[in-house]
């Protein structure tokens, strides 16, 4: 009885709030997502939303059968491709402001394949994992359970197919199970395959395998060396020599640099910066990701172990925008992290749950324009996030700085500060602008607030140089005076000593 009354009271309260609030606030699309950032000490600070969930689209909303364990997404212009692994199909969706709609379902292709099921050529997919669509509409599909990579034209005619390469670099016992694929402008393919941990497999345009790139450097520790010295040959053979990182996802940006992510690392290595869960590879496989933040990009800086979630963020997908900001998705806590090109955390948002903007098991992230699309593999739905005014301001400030308009950038940062007084990058951005304007003292104040020692040191160097140049006269006078002090002290001591001698001599002669 009591409970019912309470419920009624709560209902009444909600009704009042809805009635009183202006329509804009009560609007169902304005769902808040919990957004935060970290300060210098690694403490979380709540932040206004930079991205807000707009809509959630699943199979029912699209008018097709429900998605079953979808694994990957890809966007090209206004097309969104979804690899619906469990249903062995690929969906092409059209992205419009009003929402998503199905363009076509790709379940097979035409052409001559070497993969046979008995006598029948296999012209359908079996557990496809990833798709890459080239600018001309060619599709590259990793058809994992058929052990092949397919290259189709936009009308689903087979152009070529790649089976397991005949190479001594690959273990002959393991089947070739391609997982993720990206293709650069010249048609070179970069592939991640199951049970291959030597890096990213690189295929020529014609389809022949040329080797690996981006294998992580193996750090050989002192402890390992000592252990190896004292172990027998049999023991040594049992040890796993070195296990380089196995990547779990790839993304190729508009400058043909490949972003890769990995979830295999020791949590203890995160602080030291040796874990590197996110990397950006150049064409030689060198890691060129800039890590200028207090922590290298790695998702959450600190975490608790609760509600079945434990440990560091495990990043499963990444997407990079044209301004080189990039967004990653953490499968452990369903969170999204945005970074700028310098590796500073811009904002973190999202979380685990069933509401709009929260995820059960996010698996893929893509962007169209400034919107983010996140695919949940368990619920089989796509959540669209749109950037808020706060997010727009941050990106405008970053863009202005990139083109060299430091004053313009500072103006945007001022607006960001008005919305979020804890926003670290805003202070540093304004400080940098003052530094450019040669107002070193103000710049130092801004840097000191956020404990940016590098920039502070730079500003201080110029400030000190200016100060000495302006006050050179005084500096010289002070130095000269300091130089003379010992001489003067010596002189005074001598005079005092002589006076004392004189006095003692006189008093002695008086006594006599």
């Amino acid at each position, binding site marked *: 009885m009591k409970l019912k009354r309470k419920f009624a009271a709560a209902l009444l309260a909600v009704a009042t709030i809805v009635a009183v609030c202006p329509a804009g606030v009560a609007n169902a699309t304005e769902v808040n997502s919990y957004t935060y950032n970290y300060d210098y000490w690694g403490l979380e600070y709540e932040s206004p939303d930079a991205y807000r969930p707009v809509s959630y689209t699943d199979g029912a909303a699209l008018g097709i059968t429900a998605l079953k364990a979808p694994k990957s997404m890809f966007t090209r212009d206004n097309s969104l491709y979804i690899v619906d692994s469990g249903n062995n199909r690929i969906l092409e969706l059209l992205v419009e402001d009003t929402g998503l709609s199905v363009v076509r379902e790709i379940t097979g292709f035409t052409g001559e394949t070497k993969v046979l099921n008995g006598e029948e050529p296999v012209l359908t997919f079996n557990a496809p994992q990833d798709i890459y669509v080239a600018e001309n509409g060619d599709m590259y599909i990793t058809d994992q359970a058929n052990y092949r990579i397919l290259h189709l034209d936009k009308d689903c005619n087979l152009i070529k197919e790649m089976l397991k390469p005949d190479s001594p670099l690959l273990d002959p016992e393991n089947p070739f199970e391609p997982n993720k694929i990206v293709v650069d402008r010249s048609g070179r393919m970069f592939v991640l395959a199951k049970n291959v941990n030597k890096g990213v497999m690189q295929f020529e345009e014609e389809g022949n395998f040329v080797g690996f790139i981006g294998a992580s450097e193996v750090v050989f520790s002192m402890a390992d060396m000592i252990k190896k010295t004292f172990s027998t040959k049999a023991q040594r053979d049992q040890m796993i020599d070195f296990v380089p990182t196995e990547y779990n996802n790839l993304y190729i940006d508009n400058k043909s640099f490949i972003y890769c992510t990995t979830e295999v690392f020791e949590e203890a290595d995160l602080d030291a910066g040796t874990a590197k869960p996110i990397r950006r590879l150049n064409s030689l496989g060198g890691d060129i990701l800039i890590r200028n933040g207090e922590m290298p990009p790695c998702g959450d800086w600190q975490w608790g172990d609760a509600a079945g979630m434990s440990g560091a963020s495990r990043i499963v997908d990444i997407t990079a925008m044209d301004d080189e900001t990039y967004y990653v998705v953490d499968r452990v806590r369903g969170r999204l992290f945005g970074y700028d090109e310098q590796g500073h955390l811009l904002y973190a948002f999202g979380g685990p749950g069933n509401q709009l903007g929260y995820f059960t098991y996010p698996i893929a992230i893509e962007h169209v324009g400034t919107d983010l699309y996140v695919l949940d593999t368990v619920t089989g739905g796509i959540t669209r996030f749109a950037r808020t005014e706060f997010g727009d301001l941050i990106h405008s400030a970053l863009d202005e700085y990139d083109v060299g308009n430091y004053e313009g950038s500072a103006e945007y940062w001022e607006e960001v500060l008005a919305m979020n007084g804890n926003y670290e990058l805003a202070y540093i951005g304004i400080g940098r602008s003052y530094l450019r304007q040669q107002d070193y003292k103000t710049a130092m104040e801004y840097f000191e607030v956020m*404990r940016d*020692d*590098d920039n*502070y*040191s730079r500003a201080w160097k110029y400030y*000190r140089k200016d100060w000495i140049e302006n006050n050179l006269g005084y500096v010289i006078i002070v130095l000269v005076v300091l130089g003379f002090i010992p001489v003067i002290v010596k002189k005074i001591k001598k005079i005092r000593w002589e006076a004392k001698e004189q006095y003692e001599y006189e008093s002695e002669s008086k006594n006599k």
Partner: protein
Amino acid sequence: MNLKAKINKSAWTRYKESLKYALYIMTHPFDGFWDLTHEKRGSMAAANTLLILTFLTNLWAMRFTNFMFNDVRWERVNIWSQVAGILAPLLLYVVANWCLTTLFDGKGRMKDVYMGMCYSLTPYILITNPITIISNFVTMEEGAFLAYFDYLALGWAFCLILISVMQIHDYSLGKAIMAILFSAVGMMIIVFLVMLFFSLVSDAIAFFISIGKEILLRVY
């Protein structure tokens, strides 16, 4: 000038002399520590002053070192745990060292050990304070050298402690090193005993409280 004032003045002069003597010890440790106790050129007052200055130096360095070289979170600092963090190891060392050297024919009394330890802290005071000030006038790159001065201060102080053990107890170098090593072990034993004592006492108190409760419940 009456007698009382004269005595006061001589006490003040003696204090000043003994404090100034710390500078001599810094540069002439072998001579200095011998005379410190055997010629009574040191004083307890000066030793206490040096200990307090050490603590203040530590505090000043925490507060006034430029943030580029300083990661102190002031909202997390507890002044009493700072005091304890400096005093406890030093005093433990004095006790442990005295206990040990008394058994192994050391000549020093506890007062001498204490004075030797306090006078050994002089280089830390004299080096850290200027470094704290200088840190506010240098850039990051130049500041890299400041760390070496910190090591210098601590290394110097440690050497002085070693020599103080040698001279005060009339030990050879090897014996002094052993004495310091075993003092460290002794410090740990003392800490262990103290913890054991407190846990036993708290258990005993809990026992009597529960007996009292039991009686109250049964009887009434």
